[in-house]
């Protein structure tokens, strides 16, 4: 493999954010940021193995008709890749075992959770132990949220960050664990990388609208124990430039780069340092 950071964004069947995710990867320094329709993966023409950084973008896979990302997870698990004995999920498993990076945003996060890719406690990547369900308010919402970063989290993507301000745009973003034990394990291992917080990133909050969906422990995103698999409901790709900020016309000291870009820069740095 040449010395290029290669990111892939899977598209199709209802993904909506593939273009801006690819743009974020490029801005963060990835030399390759391909948008690949899932049909091309299933046709066997493109293989996950040729990339370092897999992005599962936001959207409404199959309309979220069976619950967010449920039908999408089912497809990835069961759709065969043409001309081979494997399913797409086998390629994905290999990708994870190879020490590569996966980030799921919004519907992509829902997909990872429902496939069992997250939190994958004990390294079990096929068992669902947490979920993202209907917002406490029962409605889809688009609003910006403050996220406090856990500095002790193994998460590759949030390394060195204290807080980020990003938009959420979802109807099913309420994080729920299947048991108190799971929740405790997530917290003890610092896998709950980002939490909804006050504007000063001081403390997680259960107060609406700062916590827009009523997530348990104000959890907005989690990683696995390796820190290389990460998913979150807010959209980092939607804040990569100053003009994405909802108050850019009034906050004069906003830097040119948006806070969401930091997550992608961390990913690209990791790939360069560890995978090339």
């Amino acid at each position, binding site marked *: 493999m040449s010395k290029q950071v290669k990111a892939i964004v899977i598209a199709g069947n209802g993904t*909506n954010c593939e273009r801006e995710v690819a743009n974020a990867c490029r801005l963060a320094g990835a030399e390759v940021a391909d948008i690949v*329709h899932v*049909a091309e993966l299933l046709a066997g023409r493109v293989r996950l193995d040729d990339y370092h950084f897999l992005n599962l973008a936001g959207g409404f896979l199959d309309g979220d008709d069976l*619950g967010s990302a449920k039908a999408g997870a*089912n497809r990835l698990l*069961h759709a*065969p890749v043409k001309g081979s004995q494997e399913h797409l999920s086998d390629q994905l498993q290999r990708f994870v075992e190879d020490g590569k990076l996966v980030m799921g945003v919004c519907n992509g996060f829902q997909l990872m959770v429902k496939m069992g890719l997250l939190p994958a406690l004990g390294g079990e990547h096929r068992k669902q132990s947490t979920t993202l369900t209907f917002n406490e308010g029962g409605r*889809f919402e688009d609003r910006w949220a403050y996220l406090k970063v856990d500095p002790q989290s193994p998460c590759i993507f949030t390394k060195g960050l204290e807080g980020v301000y990003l938009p959420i745009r979802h109807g099913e973003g309420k994080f*729920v664990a299947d048991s108190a034990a799971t929740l405790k394990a997530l917290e003890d291992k610092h896998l709950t990388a980002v939490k909804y917080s006050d504007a000063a990133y001081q403390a997680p909050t259960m107060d609406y609208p700062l916590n827009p969906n009523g997530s348990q422990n104000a959890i907005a995103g989690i990683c696995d124990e390796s820190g290389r698999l990460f998913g979150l409901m807010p959209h980092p790709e939607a804040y990569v430039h100053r003009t*994405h900020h909802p108050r850019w016309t009034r906050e004069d000291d906003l830097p040119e780069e948006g806070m969401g870009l930091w997550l992608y820069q961390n990913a690209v740095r990791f790939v360069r340092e560890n995978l090339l």
Partner: protein
Amino acid sequence: MAWRIVVGLKDGVTDARGERVRREIGHHLGIELQNVRTLDVYTVDALLSEEEVEAAALGPFSDPVIQEVAINRPLAHDFDILIEVGFRPGVTDNVGRTAREAIQYLTGRKFQGGEGVYTSTQYLLTGGVDKEAAEKIAAGFLANGLIQRWNILSADELDPAMGVPVTVPKVTSDVQPVVQAMDLNVADEQLLKLSRDGMLALNLEEMKTLQAYAADPEVRQARAAVGLGADLTDVELEALAQTWSEHCKHKIFSARIEYTDETGKQETINSLFKTYIVGATRDIRAKLGEKDFCLSVFKDNAGVIRFNDDWSLVFKVETHNSPSALDPYGGALTGIVGVNRDPFGTGLGARLIFNTDVFCFASPFYDKPLPPRLLHPRRIFEGVVEGVEHGGNKSGVPTVNGSIVFDERFAGKPLVYCGTAAIMPARIGERLCHEKKAQVGDHIIMTGGRIGKDGIHGATFSSEELHEGSPVTAVQIGDPITQRRMFDFLTIARDRGLYSSITDNGAGGLSSSVGEMGEDTGGFELHLDRAPLKYPGLQPWEILISEAQERMTLAVPPHNLEAFMALAAEMDVEATDLGVFNDSGYFHCLYEGKTVCYLSMEFIHEGVPQMVIPARWEPKQLSEPELAQPADYNATLKGLLGRLDICSKESVVRRYDHEVQAGTVIKPLVGVANDGPSDAAVFRPLFDSFEGVVVSHGICPSYSDIDTYHMMACAIDEGLRNYVAVGGDVEHVAGLDNFCWCDPVKSEKTPDGEYKAAQLVRANKALYDYCTALGVPLISGKDSMKNDYQIGDTKISIPPTVLFSVIGKIEDVRQAVSMDVKRPGDLVYLLGVTRDELGGSEYYASQGQLGKNVPKVDAGYALDLYKALNRAQREGLIASCHDLSDGGLAVALAEKAFAGGFGIRAELGKVKTDGALREDKILFSESQSRLLVTVRPEKRAGFEALFAGRDAALIGEVTEAPVVEILGTQGQKLVSADINQLKEAWQAPLREL
């Protein structure tokens, strides 16, 4: 046997959906329930093993963390009443479709014909509810009888072993396809009956034209040669009715109008459309010369203008009023995914970048008895908002601009305007992307969804008033995901140059799409039996005119056919070869090899007789009210801020994803707390350029009650004013007009037709006058002319309403300006002149008055002001800018202040007025072409120099103290109100909706 899988939340998990339903039942029906829980039911009618069904139930159908499932047994417990709501046979069931696909992936087997999955929802009610109340809840809120059915069981009626009896809403039909010959050689009365009974919506003159065509010996001879008799077939009659419908042919806008003005002067107008709309654009383009930025106007599904050397902008706004009246959710959802197909199918195809939506409703708090068949305005509100939410969000298109307008008359028909913009490369290879043409020999390919009975007679239905017999088949439910897959596929096909032409299947279905594309070559041969159907039992004429959604028609050259079909198969999109385009001169349809329709292209497209409509303008005798000045200006201002037309629409805006695609630079909600009302949206469509698209609109039906001429002028000015407020370039801007009228053709049902027609003429005259004067070409538009309700003696006609949408360019999005005040000490300037123009204003309406002095627009004055503002924005002189509209200066000052989180101190004595005006008139006048701007003190000199000789009055400044303080002309305190209280008054009314 059908399997029944029931999915419910585990005990202890909050049922947000159930809770919302409980609340809404309280609001709508006044029934306060203790608790509502919900269960999802999948009725799987397919040959599957028990293991397979269990794998589906525990896999894709449920979430193990929060849900439990039951197969072939009930899950319901601890309830008083169970209501199960499912679709009627044949209604689009998106979840059922996805569930079926999920099972196919799981088992690796395709479903056989007739197999399917059907979804329904069980509502478990507790708390003092009997079956009678349950019936009311089901019929009045949970279900829409047109598309859904329900089953009500009390707790003791539920079989503990079997659960709710299984119903499989499969379409069953043993109907054989037949083609009927229709004898038109009958008396006039019979002709009209034929039109009425067949939902053809053709008038006597049109029916007689068909009669004469069928009787023409040459026609008879040609028909005999293809095996047809002398009588027209039902397929032919339906094709003609669709093509000639008001909806498709715009007969009123094409009519010859005999207009008499108030002085008795007579004038003949040969087509409003050609004279005023096409005429305006033609004249403007001629004047622009080399600077003309129009690329494709009026001839395609949407208008196209230049964006830059490499990219072009596409825009279209549609209405979906009639279907939304019957089924608000399905109607609005179909509206948005339907208008998505217009820009997508313009030229060779475009990528969608944003949606806009404007709704006109009666008050959701309407508390009078409703005439039959009308849904309560709150249900309409809820359903429409949710339909657009699902359509827009799921399609990945941000909704960036819109508004909601209220008037009691919209109870008769709500207006649902949905717009979509798109961007296309200027060229695809050697070809200009905004042009297309089907070639002789190209195959007719239909892609996307399948054909069902949904939407049959949609075009003719919307060409009539809402009446007792309005058809239920006109209701459709959109399927955003099937459409998304088709768009993904067609975008690749476009870039590979695989087709010659593309258009969408909207009103009129294949009849319209193939019929129009066939004009390129001069004929076609269409095999109706080859079309893929959702279920058997459709007649040939139904296949031809069905408006089943998510379908595009393409012209694919023979040498590309194989590649096109292979790509479709790989991307799991259905594509079917239905025939060929030729130059036969005939609209030729066959069924199983036999000709069932053979009409000359010329007759079907040009044969409709021109209507003649009388119009007589008599200004109403109106007067200005004599009102006392408000005793408490604070209370008056708060009252205005809480009026439905003015108050915050945040609860709706937040339900729309307005940021997907990461291009929304000026969002609908702005300011220090992200909740101020933006004037317009700025969108950056390309990641490698800071050039932006600006979109806004104007709409002011309340002025129509005085004079539609000035209503139109004000709508144009409002649209442009909003556009320029954020920084839109007034020299690179185009408009779209969407007329929604009540029937303007004088008849027994419409005795005041001459007046309504004159209102239409006057609006069109203003459209021409102001667009040409302002240099805003019209690039597309639409009209919906029968927005009346008539059952028995009750007739409700909407106020004449035009939505004027504006799209254009900003050279650099970093120069965009938002409406919120930015910092204390900034200077507040009012641009423009304030006049005694409160006719049709919110202030008068709040006191039950209409008035007479409708606002008037001076186009030359406005344009000069807007150009100066553009320069000031480019030079960075403007800190904030907000347009003055409903509620005038007082409302604009309040909105600017609370959006920015600071106070404003302003003096009415400094306002530039036309003559001496009373203080309440200065505060609440709705004079046009006015904007409030704030300027940092260090930019004062530059700003004032630029506006020297123009009306830019320094009326106050932004204050640290969070108070809006307005001093009267004598320096006395008129208004002194805390911005948080003002904001609360503005946010409260629709917060919970």
